[in-house]
């Protein structure tokens, strides 16, 4: 190794590897199936304003940072950049505590096995939330360790040293750069006993500032590599036989002459896996098309109607996940109870980069480049698929062309690994758009029965939300987990009622196992739950002729959380000038929601022309606590709103004849530029803790639009996508 090679810190203290925060929350009590325990788990998981965090990352300056001789500092993170700006936000946090110039910090996605351990993957709006303090502590610890080494090298006391932009200076005027200190150091590094003091917020120069995204220059010149763009020398192209009908399995295969066709290298025929690897993609596809594959279709045909029937609220079914006061009594007795039922459809992620994987199975190791939000889980999945140990597999992170929850399952890498193991060469598998529609998973459909009443003084007296949904989170656990728990934490994201109901309130989760794969989709249940709750609150306001904003402000609790919600409602009202007359044919609707420690309120301005709903402008107020990058918060707000508008106005995935009703965007269009509203965002709040931003802004969108349509037309629309009568 040359002297110019960057030096890595050596791990010297076990104490540094102790994770911070409360890990293992999800595991608590799962062996106990009593309803009361379920409610307790629900509170434990969702009772705080934080997402169900699965523990903070390990704090280790020796793993997270690499210092080059020129004092360029590399921050290694196992978070995946999929457009949310996470690399920039984490670089800001690190540069802040290291107290270095912006140009000096370089952030990169770390390989699995490199010591940067983050089994959680990237999602759940928790990357900044989970990294904020650990990363600052790691950076501050690194500075202390460098000071200690510098004191030794200069022969002075540590207290005489100051650190400024990667240079440590003694009060006698001598100085050493970080790079020089590392180059001159030998032996073990001295790690401080105590966690170092962190910079006061008042001294921040990067946190809270809109630093430009570090990944954008390469994204406007075509020079960034996504999973689909990766190529290896000697690489084969793989294709996999996949069913057209939902639930179909392979009955028999006659490969015919597929193996001897031009370019074909390997044909794999196993019970559950038929695939071809060839020199070009079209040669592989031609060979697969040549084969006679007979599929066994499910005994009971899967129909759209059967799915909707299954996802229907049934009284007295489900698990009570929120219960205050005596809602049952009031719901039974009160003749003024209003009931509305809401329905949301299945939807696809429509990440524009189809997923792709290259896996190179070698005798002593496995290298994989995979479009994934969960590199560590992918490494395990690949290892399991080919009977190797997880630590033999290195997943090299790649940029993602959209994530949205789609890139969480390991089957993508597992298939490429099986084919590579058979071919003994690297194999690339790229999904087609049709495969993405047919063979991925979808957002689960939901049905909601909302019930409630309002006293004559304008206070909500009782409120009930009974939700039926296909699975989200349970799909990644063994079946027994769902059977014991009885409800799906992901499906009920955003389902709990945050308004005060004087006589009582309840939320009931009714889990529905569906015959087609449903799972994560940006915000999980948040969009659907926000649509149902905020639409219904609007209806309650109408019964007492209350202004929708005033009604919300009146019925939110006088708690820190309630005050934050009121804060974003008031802020968005000010931004949109709620209450001032709009041009003829325009109307406003308002909605709010909370998720991942972040409160969001939105006002949508709509019109109707030729039976079509137009969304002209969406105003948003966001309280994400401590904001790292204000423009990043705005960008995530805009993105969540646009995805929500698309779901609200357009998107609906249906089953037709037992198969996907759409295999491309001709029959499943997305929001287009001419349909996309202008967006204005104001950031409010503050404090010492950041909230999540990837998902919360999608919560209020559908409700705000539907409420605006009601204000304009008097039609209370309760199904997505919204269709006027």
């Amino acid at each position, binding site marked *: 190794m040359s002297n110019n090679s960057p030096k890595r810190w050596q791990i010297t203290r076990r104490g540094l590897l102790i994770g911070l925060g409360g890990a293992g929350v999800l595991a608590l009590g799962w062996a106990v199936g009593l309803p009361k325990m379920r409610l307790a788990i629900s509170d434990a998981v969702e009772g705080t304003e934080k997402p169900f965090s699965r523990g903070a990352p390990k704090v280790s300056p020796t793993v997270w940072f690499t210092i080059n001789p020129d004092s360029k500092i590399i921050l290694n993170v196992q978070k995946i950049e999929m457009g949310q700006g996470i690399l920039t936000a984490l670089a800001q946090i690190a540069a802040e505590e290291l107290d270095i110039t912006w140009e000096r910090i370089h952030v990169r996605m770390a390989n699995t096995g490199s010591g940067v351990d983050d089994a959680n993957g990237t999602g759940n709006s928790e990357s900044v939330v989970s990294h904020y303090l650990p990363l600052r502590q790691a950076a501050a610890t690194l500075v202390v360790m460098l000071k200690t080494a510098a004191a030794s090298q200069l022969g002075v006391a540590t207290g005489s040293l100051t650190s400024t932009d990667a240079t440590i200076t003694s009060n006698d005027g001598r100085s050493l750069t970080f790079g020089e200190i590392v180059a001159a150091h030998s032996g073990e590094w001295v790690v401080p006993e105590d966690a170092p003091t962190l910079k006061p917020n008042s001294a921040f120069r990067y946190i809270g500032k*809109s630093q430009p995204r570090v990944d954008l220059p390469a994204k406007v010149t075509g020079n960034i590599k996504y999973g689909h763009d990766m190529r290896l020398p000697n690489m084969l192209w793989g294709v996999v036989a996949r069913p057209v009908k939902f639930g179909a399995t392979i009955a028999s295969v006659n490969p015919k002459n597929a193996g001897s066709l031009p370019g074909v290298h390997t044909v794999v025929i196993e019970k559950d896996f038929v695939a071809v690897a060839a020199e070009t993609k079209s040669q592989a596809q031609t060979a697969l098309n040549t084969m006679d594959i007979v599929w066994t279709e499910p005994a009971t045909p899967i129909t759209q109607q059967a799915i909707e029937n299954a996802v229907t609220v049934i009284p007295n079914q489900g698990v009570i996940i929120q219960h205050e006061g005596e809602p049952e009594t009031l719901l039974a007795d009160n003749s003024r109870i209003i009931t509305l039922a809401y329905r949301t459809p299945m939807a696809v992620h429509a990440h524009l980069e189809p997923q792709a994987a290259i896996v190179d199975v070698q005798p002593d190791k496995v290298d994989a480049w995979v479009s994934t939000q969960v590199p560590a889980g992918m490494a395990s999945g690949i290892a399991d698929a080919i009977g190797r140990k997880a630590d033999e597999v290195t997943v090299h992170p790649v940029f993602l062309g959209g994530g949205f929850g789609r890139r969480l399952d390991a089957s993508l890498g597992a298939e490429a690994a099986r084919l590579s193991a058979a071919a003994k060469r690297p194999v690339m598998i790229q999904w087609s758009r049709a495969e993405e529609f047919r063979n991925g998973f979808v957002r689960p459909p939901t049905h909601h029965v909302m019930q409630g009443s309002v006293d004559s003084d304008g206070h909500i007296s009782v409120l009930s939300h009974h939700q039926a949904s296909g699975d989200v989170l349970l799909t990644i656990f063994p079946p027994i987990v769902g059977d014991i728990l009885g409800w799906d934490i992901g499906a009920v994201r955003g389902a709990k009622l945050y308004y005060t109901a004087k006589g009582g309130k309840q939320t009931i989760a009714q889990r529905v196992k569906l015959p087609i794969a449903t799972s994560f989709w940006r915000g999980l249940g948040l969009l659907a739950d926000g649509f149902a709750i905020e639409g219904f609150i609007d209806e309650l306001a109408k019964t007492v002729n209350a202004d929708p904003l005033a009604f919300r402000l009146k019925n939110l609790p006088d708690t820190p959380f309630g005050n934050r919600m009121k804060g974003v409602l008031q802020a968005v009202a000010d931004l949109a000038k709620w209450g001032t007359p709009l041009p003829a044919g325009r109307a406003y609707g308002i909605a709010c929601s909370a998720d991942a420690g972040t409160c969001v309120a939105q006002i949508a301005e709509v019109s109707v022309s030729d039976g079509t709903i137009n969304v002209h402008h969406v105003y948003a107020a966001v309280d994400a606590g401590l904001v790292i990058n204000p423009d990043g918060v705005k960008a995530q707000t805009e993105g969540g709103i646009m995805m929500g508008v698309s779901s609200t106005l357009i998107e609906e995935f249906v089953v037709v004849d037992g198969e996907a009703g759409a295999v491309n965007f001709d029959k499943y269009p997305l929001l287009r530029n001419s349909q996309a509203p202008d967006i204005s965002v104001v950031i409010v709040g503050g404090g010492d803790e950041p909230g999540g931003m990837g998902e919360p802004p999608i919560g209020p969108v559908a409700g705000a639009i539907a409420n605006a349509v009601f204000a304009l037309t008097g039609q209370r629309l309760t199904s997505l996508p919204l269709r006027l009568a």
Partner: protein
Amino acid sequence: MELIINQKTYPIPDNGDSRPLLLVLRDELNLTGTKIGCGAGICGACTVHVDGVPTRSCQTPVNSVLGKEIRTIEGLADADGTLHPVQQAFIDLQVPQCGWCMSGQIMTAAALIDGNATPTPDQIITAMDKNYCRCGTYHRIRQAIAHAATLKKEATS
């Protein structure tokens, strides 16, 4: 057979077929800046310029563009690295999120302002209406193209 891409000549095998230009760019020439989204000409991720005209490369048979000037995102900036005004504007307004659709968005926008120095808001929307962005950067795209027109005007005045 030869293709002229970004003013360079690339020999490609004559397979006697009409395979899409997009596959030749990405899989044969390793010019992966041009992206695939739908393979059906709907999403616009694969947009390149053919003789200056924004063109869906996934729907363009490679043998229909022999001898024509093809420009991809890799060739949009000047040889000295100076970004096209649209590229600069997309950075200035921090437009891209995931970035996958951006090559197509930028090539479509570049053709617009190269042919129309002062596009109106309606002209911008019309030109950009067939390019999907799933991350939802649409209104930043509109603002950035207006900004790019200003940058271009400043650069030429």
